Structures are given as structure tokens and as C-alpha cells.
């Protein structure tokens, strides 16, 4: 099954329903498909293998994504935050390609054989403005690769994750009800196009019949203003965004009455932030989603009921679930495995493995999926007795101290229970005696943290080997723009500081 089908059936069933853009001047589903089909004809005429995109969020993006699927050219969104040298390496890897780029980014791109550069303003003038054209009926394309997403490449060269039409449509159709949204619903998308959630948001909204509205780039003020103006009912945010959004709401009289559901993911949400969100937005259903690029987005989620149950419960097992990512989707299988490949017991930490039609587990020229379909996520985690999944972070981030494997996540959770901790990270840095030693980097609200009390609590709740040996105080921790803590950067800085000091 191919992604354009999702738009096709929505356009046939409710062509006059608003699909993309603001309340005025946006596209309805019929216009969305018609414009995408014209772009597809243009792309097919170019005869390039790939369709690349470098730019801020906007209505051109979903049109180009569906057009790529219709034309059978994989869609390759590029990260505009990369340094020019790194960006140009990726541009070269998309060749032969048509590259639609924001006008103010054109100068960043060095000419490369096989890459035809198209200014976004010219693209929009040709395909998004003027009277809506008649749709063109295209023959179904052959290429079953829908999207290539470059992974963030914190280790080595970025890998191009392959998402096939079958992976994406399977994800959409198993998680969303066709036209399940009512006509008033609108989703605000602020994650960038080169993030898997930016892609899946387009597909799930089209199939669900929900209008999508874009923020070109995230600021909390713009987010709140757009949500109010557009009557936004649904949105996905990363943890750092939510905290700033709450600050803006607190500083204004805006209550976002239309907002129904906020999902969050892409990093660990500090419990105080979600507690604050629940208190400030009592009418909103919160959903925590966990997924990877290689799994076509969400594979587990913690729903609104789970949030309420966890916060209301005196049972520590249930209470703790607020820090979980909920239960795996019913449409896939999930296991926690030991290093030897056997399954972990309840509560035992291991590597998260997943299998299902939405799981691609594939990079260009390299399959990372086992012959039996299981994909090793490289994430550490565990399941509780109720089947709730706790994600501890990347397996590579596990600290090995004197032969003992220590997950930073559980130590960070204890630290976050202190009101004085605004943010924290626990890391292992090289140490002659133990191989690695546990250190904590904390952002203190008071500026004078009681690390002695924190150490004592960790020792009592966990064990002495998990107690940080060195404490670093910072004003803030480094994150990428999608809310992922840049552990490796932090680790390198600390190792240097310790050596120097």
C-alpha cells in the first residue's frame, strides 16, 4: 500500500473539508490532492531519483511529500541546522535529485552534479498559488521507498533510514481511524520535517481527516498565539517546548479552550513539567509517545487515562508509570532482551526489541533487521508487571562501572524528584579505577543544591555504586532542537574538565 492512497481516499470522501493551513486561505482535501498531483507530474518529468527538501515548515511540505509518493521518488528532508559542510555532504548523497530549498538557504548549497536546485518561492508560485487545478490521474509508481531520513549521526556519518510506503501506511492505518477526526479538529505541527514525527504527522492527519497547521519554526509565543487563533485541538511537542509553552500560558490569560490533546515525545519529560501541564490545562488529554525513526514513529504510548491513574494512585507501582512510555501498540510485538538474546523477566533491564509491519529497521544499503523481523532498537528499557514500558535511553549511554551496568535514567528520575532540580543528566566518564565513574550534571533552581541530601537519597533508593561521585552545576544542559539531550557532547566536555582539573 502506498502513502498517496491515504490522501486519495480522504479527498474522495470529504474533498471540501479543510486539510492544510489556516482557517482562511488553506487547502481543502480536494485541492490538496489536486495540487500534489500537479507537483508529481512535474517531478516525474524531471526524471530524478529523489525529491529533497531543505526548509522551514509550511504548506509546501505536505504537498511535496504526497507528490513524491505519487511520482515514486523517495522524499528526503534535510536538516537546515547542520553546518554548511555537513549539509552539503548530505545534499551530495541525495543526487540525482530535485531539491526544493527555502530562498534564504539557497546560498548555503554548493553546486553538485545531479542535484537540481529549485527556490521555494518559485515552487510555491507555480504549484500553491492561483486557481486550484484539476487533479491529474497518475499511474501507480513502482519505487516502494517513501522517505529517506538522515539520522542525527551522533556517532559517525549520518545514516539514511529507509521508510517504505508499506511501513508508513501500516503505521497510519493501525493507529488512526479513517476520517476519525471531526471537521473542527486541527493539529499544530512544530516538529521539523526531517524528524520522523514531522513526516508521520502529515500522514496521520490526512488519513484521520484532521487539518494541519504549521509553525514555520518553534517559539513558545508563536505556538500559543497560533493555537488560540486557529482553534488548535491537537499538537505534538517535545519536552523543552512544553515547559516554555506553559511559561507563556502562565504569563498571559490564554487558556486554549479548544485544545483537546497534547502528545509529547522525543526525549524524557521531567515529571514536574507534566504535573504542571496537567494542573494548568485540566481540559487537555496528555499522551506520551515513544518511537524511533526506524519504526515509522510511535511504538508505545501512555494515554490520558494512564496519566490520570498514575497521578491519582497511592500504589508506587502505578504512580511510577507516569515516567513510563505506556504500553506497546497492539499492532506490534515488543520484547526486552538480555545480551545473550533471551527474554528479560518483568522488571529486568535489557535492550528493547520490536517487530511489526511499521518497523523498517533498514538503512540505505544496509538492513538492520533480523531475518525473523525483529529490530534491536539500541534503547535500554524494562517492562513492569502491567506491561508498561520504561525507556532508559540509548544502550550506549549505559554506564559500566566496575563491571556493573548502570542506567542513567533511574538515577535521573530520583534526582528529578527534588524540587531544586530543574534539569539533570547522569553520565559515566572514564576513570582508571572503575573503568567509568558516575557523575551528575544538575541545573539547580536555588543555585545552591544540597548534593549531600541528593546523594543520600540515591544511595537509599538505589544503591551506593549508583551514587554520583562528582557533581557539576550548570545553567542549562545542551539539547538538540527536537529535545534530545546531547549526552556525548556533555560527556566530552566533562571528561575534559575532569582531566584539566
Amino acid at each position, binding site marked *: 500500500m502506498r502513502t498517496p492512497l491515504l490522501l486519495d481516499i480522504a479527498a474522495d*470522501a470529504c474533498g471540501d473539508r479543510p486539510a492544510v493551513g489556516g482557517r482562511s486561505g488553506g487547502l481543502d482535501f480536494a485541492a490538496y490532492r489536486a495540487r500534489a498531483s500537479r507537483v508529481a507530474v512535474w517531478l516525474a518529468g524531471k526524471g530524478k531519483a529523489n525529491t529533497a527538501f531543505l526548509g522551514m515548515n509550511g504548506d509546501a511540505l505536505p504537498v511535496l511529500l504526497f507528490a513524491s509518493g505519487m511520482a515514486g521518488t523517495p522524499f528526503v528532508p534535510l536538516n537546515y541546522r547542520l553546518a554548511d559542510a555537513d549539509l552539503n555532504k548530505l545534499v551530495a548523497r541525495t543526487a540525482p535529485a530535485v531539491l526544493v530549498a527555502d530562498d534564504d538557504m539557497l546560498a548555503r548549497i554548493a553546486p553538485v552534479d545531479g542535484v537540481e536546485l529549485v527556490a521555494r518561492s518559485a515552487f510555491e508560485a507555480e504549484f500553491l498559488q492561483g486557481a486550484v487545478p484539476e487533479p491529474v490521474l497518475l499511474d501507480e509508481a513502482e519505487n516502494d521507498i517513501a522517505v529517506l531520513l538522515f539520522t542525527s549521526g551522533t556517532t559517525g556519518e549520518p545514516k539514511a533510514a529507509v521508510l517504505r510506503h508499506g511501513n508508513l501506511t501500516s503505521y497510519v492505518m493501525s493507529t488512526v481511524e479513517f476520517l476519525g477526526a471531526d471537521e473542527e479538529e486541527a493539529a499544530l505541527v512544530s516538529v521539523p520535517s526531517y524528524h520522523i514525527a514531522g513526516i508521520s504527522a502529515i500522514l*496521520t492527519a490526512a488519513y484521520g481527516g484532521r487539518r494541519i497547521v504549521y509553525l514555520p519554526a518553534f517559539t513558545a509565543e508563536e505556538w500559543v498565539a497560533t493555537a488560540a487563533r486557529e482553534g488548535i485541538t491537537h499538537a505534538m511537542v517535545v519536552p523543552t517546548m512544553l515547559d516554555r509553552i506553559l511559561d507563556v500560558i502562565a504569563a498571559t490569560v490564554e487558556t486554549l479552550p479548544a485544545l483537546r490533546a497534547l502528545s509529547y515525545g522525543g526525549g524524557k519529560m521531567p515529571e514536574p513539567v507534566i504535573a504542571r501541564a496537567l494542573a494548568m490545562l485540566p481540559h487537555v488529554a496528555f499522551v506520551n509517545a515513544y518511537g524511533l525513526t526506524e519504526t515509522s*514513529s510511535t511504538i508505545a504510548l501512555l494515554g490520558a487515562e494512564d496519566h490520570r491513574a498514575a497521578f491519582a494512585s497511592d500504589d508506587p507501582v502505578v504512580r511510577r508509570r507516569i515516567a513510563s512510555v505506556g504500553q506497546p501498540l497492539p499492532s506490534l510485538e515488543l520484547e526486552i532482551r538480555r545480551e545473550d538474546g533471551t527474554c528479560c523477566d518483568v522488571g529486568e533491564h535489557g535492550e528493547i526489541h520490536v517487530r511489526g509491519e511499521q518497523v523498517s529497521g533498514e538503512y540505505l544499503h544496509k538492513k538492520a533487521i533480523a531475518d525473523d523481523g525483529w529490530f534491536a532498537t539500541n534503547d535500554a528499557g524494562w517492562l513492569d508487571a502491567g506491561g508498561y514500558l520504561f525507556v532508559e535511553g540509548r544502550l550506549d549511554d549505559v554506564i559500566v562501572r566496575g563491571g556493573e551496568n548502570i542506567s542513567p535514567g533511574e538515577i535521573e528520575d530520583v534526582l528529578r524528584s527534588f524540587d531544586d532540580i530543574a534539569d539533570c543528566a547522569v553520565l559515566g566518564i572514564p576513570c582508571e579505577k572503575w573503568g567509568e565513574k558516575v557523575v551528575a550534571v544538575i541545573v539547580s533552581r536555588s543555585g545552591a543544591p544540597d548534593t549531600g541530601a541528593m546523594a543520600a537519597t540515591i544511595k537509599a533508593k538505589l544503591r551506593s555504586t549508583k551514587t554520583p561521585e562528582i557533581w557539576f552545576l550548570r545553567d542549562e544542559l545542551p539539547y538538540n532542537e527536537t529535545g534530545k539531550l546531547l549526552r556525548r557532547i556533555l560527556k566530552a566536555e566533562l571528561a575534559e574538565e575532569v582531566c584539566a582539573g
Partner: protein
Amino acid sequence: MELKPGSRWKSAVCDAQLVVVRPPSAAGELQCGGAPVLPIDDASAPSGDVSADFAAGVMIGKRYTDAASGIEVLGAKAGKGSLAFNGVAMTIKGAKPLPASD
């Protein structure tokens, strides 16, 4: 008829439109309102009567399955006829919708 995943069909006797989500394990006939379905691009308008035995209707957005063959079909447009595979009525798949997560 080749009931490939993603293939689109329409009822011969009502307004229902369908998408095959999962193919059947063996070849067979997809029927709506008691009559074989037609390819979506078939030019003919619905004609004839919906069979009284297959008149429970197709609902938009619902999924219908036949346990024996494994075929699964999405209602892409509603209609008066109901679905059958080789004459056996298909049943509605009672999946609880998940909350939006992206």
C-alpha cells in the same frame, strides 16, 4: 478479482467504496450488497437492488474482516449494502482507536 492491499473497489449496487487492507489467503470474491464489487475506476453507476441478506450497510472508517480467509477491508465511503467474501458475511473489526500521538 485481484484483491491486493491498497486496491480500491466500489459496490455495484450502492454508494459504498472500499480499500483492501489485507489480502485473502486464497482467491475469492469480495461482495457488497450481495453483488461482486467493481474496480474503483469502473464507469458504471450503482444499479440493481441491495440483497436483503446483505443490507446491514458499510460504514466509513470501519474495518471489515473475514476470519477464514484473513481478508480485511476498509470502508472508504458508506453504502447500504454490507460486505461478504465468497458469500460469507464479513464482520466489523472492533478496534479501539488510539489517541493521536504525532
